[in-house]
């Protein structure tokens, strides 16, 4: 247990050092704030002295002009103290904001790099907590905590000096309670940190739950889950409250305890010092003066204990933020790219424009031959979803992937875009292992229509071109026309500029799919991947798109996934996936002739239709 304690301290020190790192870019401001705070405490000392001056000198002398002069001096110190406090508040709070800014950017940037595997495991609401409230908690540390501690330490050391100078024996008695304070602080640190950790956990749970239930509210209501969900939410909310009440307990005990200890010191001084007065080893005057100063001695200590509480809260959320920042990124650009948070992004200065990102500016110029070589892949260790899959797609070839649901078609796409990395075998584009390629370059040559359509809030045009300003309005329009989305877009009140709600909630599913299809075309990729790109589109539009695509697909390597065999039968080659294995491959006619899985699938659809 003792060891653990030591470990805890070392751990805290490391955490603290890492937090203070964030102050480094702003050391000038911090310096100014510290100077201001020390100046301020000196100014604070002036009024009592001026009062003494008035009472001891000017009043007995009846010197009215002297009184006036003191009043002016008083005013000057007031103004000075006002100015310094302003400077201190301003610099420190601004620094706090800048650090929050930096930290948010850093977390957000890291979120852009984290593996999708991480996203599979972590609910959106939890990750949001890191970016929003966790960072906010840290702000308090920088604005109210760190700097004023310097002021406290300054006062503390000064008073300790005075105490020793007055009477070193009594000073020792006063200091004798310090170990007790250390003990209480230890106890407090251990318990309150735990409860703050729990608080952070539950606030993340609250966010995760809210996020999920708000986005799925229609389903909740359709299935009359309101009451049960409320019970669930109530349980989380209650745990959050209890954790907070727990932390109140600790700090509500902590402050009075520190006060009690300071009272104990004063009592000791009176008791023992009184004894010395009786023995005549101490004058009464010194004892009285000493008591006065001893009381001042504990004020900064109490102050610091308040800061200590803030610190504990901040540590609990910084643990979480750092844990996120320390999550290694497995899938990074090939070659010399770093495997972990690079030093540059660890502590970014405020408002730094991102440099040109990697070398991905020039899209790879190769023809676009794709090859899977003995690829085996499992999402969950030991449960391979793809087993020893090998195939080649020649440049400009159009290939269809078919297979039962859950057979691993989308997984192949996920691997090709390096959303996940293969465990065995390799995937190459133009002979280069995709793990050696620049990630952005790889992805920039692929246009993907995801099976799960996702639109962003914004406008119709904004959803087609996303953030890519290079895509002109005409290109957007052409893409929309190619997928026959232009018709419905033009009927919208503001056409291309019509606002789109979060997730495109006010559009029909087919319309959303068309937009996401248009998006892929607008990016003019060399490789086009269509994962069930028209599954929710009506037959007529689908046929029109198919015709339009004949032109669009020309010269592009295309991989299309579709359950409706009719949509893919004129592809150059069809790959049949069955339970994670590639079972058949060939043209439509060849596969029919093989009388295998494809034939069976086909028969079914065909019989079905002709029976009509």
């Amino acid at each position, binding site marked *: 247990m003792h060891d653990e304690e030591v470990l805890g301290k070392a751990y805290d020190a490391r955490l603290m050092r890492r937090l203070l790192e964030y102050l480094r870019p702003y050391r000038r401001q911090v310096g100014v704030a510290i100077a201001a705070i020390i100046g301020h405490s000196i100014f604070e000392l002036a009024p009592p002295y001026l009062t003494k001056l008035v009472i001891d000198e000017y009043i007995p002398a009846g010197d009215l002009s002297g009184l006036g002069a003191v009043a002016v001096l008083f005013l000057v110190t007031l103004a000075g103290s006002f100015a310094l406090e302003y400077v201190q508040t301003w610099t420190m709070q601004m620094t706090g904001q800048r650090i929050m800014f930096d930290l948010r*950017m850093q977390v957000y940037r890291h979120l*852009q790099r984290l593996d999708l595997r991480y996203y599979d495991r972590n609910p959106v609401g939890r990750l949001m907590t890191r970016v929003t409230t966790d960072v906010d908690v840290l702000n308090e540390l920088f604005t109210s905590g760190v700097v004023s501690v310097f002021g406290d330490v300054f006062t503390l050391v000064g008073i300790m000096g005075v105490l020793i100078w007055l009477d070193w024996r009594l000073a020792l008695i006063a200091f004798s309670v310090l170990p007790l304070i250390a003990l209480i602080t230890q106890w407090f640190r251990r318990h309150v940190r735990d409860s703050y950790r729990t608080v952070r956990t539950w606030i993340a749970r609250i966010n995760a739950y809210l996020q999920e239930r708000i986005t799925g509210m229609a389903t909740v209501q359709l299935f009359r889950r309101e009451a049960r*969900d409320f019970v669930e939410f109530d349980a989380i909310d209650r745990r959050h*409250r209890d954790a907070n009440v727990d932390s109140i307990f600790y700090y509500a005990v902590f402050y009075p305890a520190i006060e009690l200890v300071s009272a104990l010191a*004063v009592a000791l001084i009176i008791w023992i*010092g009184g004894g010395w007065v009786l023995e005549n080893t101490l004058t009464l005057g010194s004892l009285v003066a000493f008591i006065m100063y001893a009381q001042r001695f504990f004020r900064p200590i109490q102050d610091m204990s308040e800061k200590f509480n803030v610190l504990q809260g901040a540590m609990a959320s910084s643990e979480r933020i750092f844990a996120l920042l320390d999550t290694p990124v497995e899938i990074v650009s090939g070659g010399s790219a770093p495997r972990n948070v690079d030093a540059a992004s660890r502590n970014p200065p405020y408002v730094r424009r991102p440099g040109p990102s990697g070398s991905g500016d020039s899209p790879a110029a190769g023809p676009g031959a794709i090859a899977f070589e003995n690829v085996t892949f499992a999402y969950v260790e030991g*449960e391979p979803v793809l087993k020893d899959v090998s195939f080649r797609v020649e440049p400009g070839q159009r290939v269809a992937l078919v297979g039962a649901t*859950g057979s691993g078609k989308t997984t192949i796409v996920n691997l090709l875009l390096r959303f996940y990395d293969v465990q065995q075998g390799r995937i190459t584009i133009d002979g280069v292992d995709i793990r050696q390629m620049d990630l952005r370059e790889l992805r920039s040559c692929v246009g993907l229509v995801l099976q799960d359509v996702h639109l962003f809030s914004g406008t119709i045009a904004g959803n087609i071109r996303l953030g890519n300003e290079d895509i002109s309005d005409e290109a957007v329009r052409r893409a929309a026309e190619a997928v026959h989305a232009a018709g419905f877009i033009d009927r919208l009140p503001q056409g291309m500029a019509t606002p789109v709600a979060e997730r495109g909630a006010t559009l029909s599913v087919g319309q959303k799919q068309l937009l*996401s299809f248009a998006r892929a075309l607008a990016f003019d990729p060399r490789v086009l991947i269509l994962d069930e790109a028209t599954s929710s589109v009506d037959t*007529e539009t689908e046929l029109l798109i198919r015709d339009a695509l004949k032109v669009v697909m020309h010269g592009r390597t295309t991989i299309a996934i579709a359950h409706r065999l009719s949509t893919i039968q004129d592809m150059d080659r069809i790959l049949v996936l069955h339970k994670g294995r590639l079972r058949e491959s060939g043209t439509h006619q060849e596969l029919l002739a093989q009388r295998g899985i494809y034939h069976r699938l086909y028969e079914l659809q065909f019989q079905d239709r002709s029976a009509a």
Partner: protein
Amino acid sequence: MTPGRRLLGYLLRYRRSFVVGFLCVIATASIGLASPWVLKHAVDDLHAGATADKFRFYAAALLGLAAAGGVFRFLMRRIIIGASRGIEYDLRNDFFAHLQRLDLGYFQRHRTGDLMSRATSDLSAVRSMVGPAVMYTATTSLTFVVALMLMISIDAWLTIIALVPLPFVTASVRYFGEAIHRRSEAIQQQLSEISAITQEMLSGVRVVRAYGQEPFEIERFRASNEVYFTRNRGLIRLQGVFNPIMGLLMGTSALLVLWLGSREVVAGRMTVGELVAFNAYLAMLAWPMIAFGWVTSLIQRGMASWKRMLEVFDTGPAVTDADATDAIPDVAAIRGEIEFRHLTLAFGDRVVLHDISATLPAGTTTAIVGGTGSGKSTLLSVLPRLHNPPPGTVFIDGVDVRHIRLAVLRGAIGFVPQEPFLFGASLSENIAFGWSQPPQDPDGVESAAAIARLDTDVRDFPKGYDTVIGERGITLSGGQKQRTAIARALAVDPKILVLDDALSAVDTYTEEEILRRLQGVMRQRTSLIVSHRISTARGADQILVLSGGRIVERGTHDDLVTRNGVYAELHRKQLLEEELAAS
């Protein structure tokens, strides 16, 4: 009711805590005043002549007072801050419960991240107002009153002088208070924006990655973060002035007292001792004054956030039981006949459904076909009142759906949405989502899964039905998600089954299997099936063809094929495709 009044309602729930808390505040403050008094006596007595007994007595008295003060201080925090956590908890629960009552349209108009921000960040500002602010207001006003009384007891005239800056205090509190309120509101709003942006980026992360939008997303976030920063700067500028102003005004008081008071002393109208004592009491005011400024900020921030929460609380749900009658008392009483009577529905001024009339006899199957955006999903959504139909347009068993209690209405409907939404829980919990109890018997879950043909897939999952799927079901394949949603709808054993293009992501073989199994299920139910595939629609008792929000054709498959209209054309195209392929 004013916002303050509304909040008071929540505070009153904890009135006992607050009353006891205030008593503790009074006790703490009195003890706080007593210990300097004891110390003063100790010093005086020691001057007069010291004995060991006296030393011990005073030492013990100080310790005793500190202990008693500590206990009350502990109770004060524990009770008042504890109550504020209780209020926070109540508010959040009420907020969530209110969200649950809001209609689909509301969630389409508001961003998830924004709502979340109100439930967390804004709520925490409100909490700081009802807890710490209340506590410090009590402590400080008490100290203020006591110090004031002591000052008056010495010299009333000097007290008035000491209070000269008071109007300035009031004026600055009003001025800064308002400004802080406005700026806090703007800040909270921006925080909502940050939260919303983050939420959207995180949920669309695959698109962001696939299209290399990371720099753009970072840039967008930075812009928003910068606005947040700027707005905070505005607030800090205010607070930077406001906080020291309290100290300044307080100092002015001290200055006036010292200056004018010492003239009084010189003039012989006051003793030095009185002036010293007066100054000491004035010093007691310093902390309450400074805390007052701080509390003002807390309250203004809290009120700004509270108003933002009230915006949500004040939105009445558009879909309610307000018109409900007991015409259909419970789910068991529903037969399942559906009628649309001249249903016209518009979103804003966009009319999506025009004059829809149709009767779906109980126990029959109706297929709805039609082009993309023709209004199929919208038509289905009015049945469980996800969107409210106008009165007198949609009937179940002859009763306007608006007259059926929502719980009964929705309980009778098994709905498979076009985009199935699954939850981050185990498969069995997802399938049994509509049950009033967590799933206990596996049979119900398994038989529903078998009809949806999810069973074969689950057999391959090592944890079977206990497999936990990611949020929104991201760890399932597209078809698995859809089939889970079908199983979920079947598991509630509904009178009315609604399938909105529910087989679009499954292969033909599976589709065929599911349809075959569904036939048995559908025999006893009224079913509505939306599909783009003739193969699915073909077997229906009635087919409705929608185009541009109108029913353009209706009838059985055979009728429609011979009629040579839209449906026949569709049929011809789909057949042609197959034949082309077969050739």
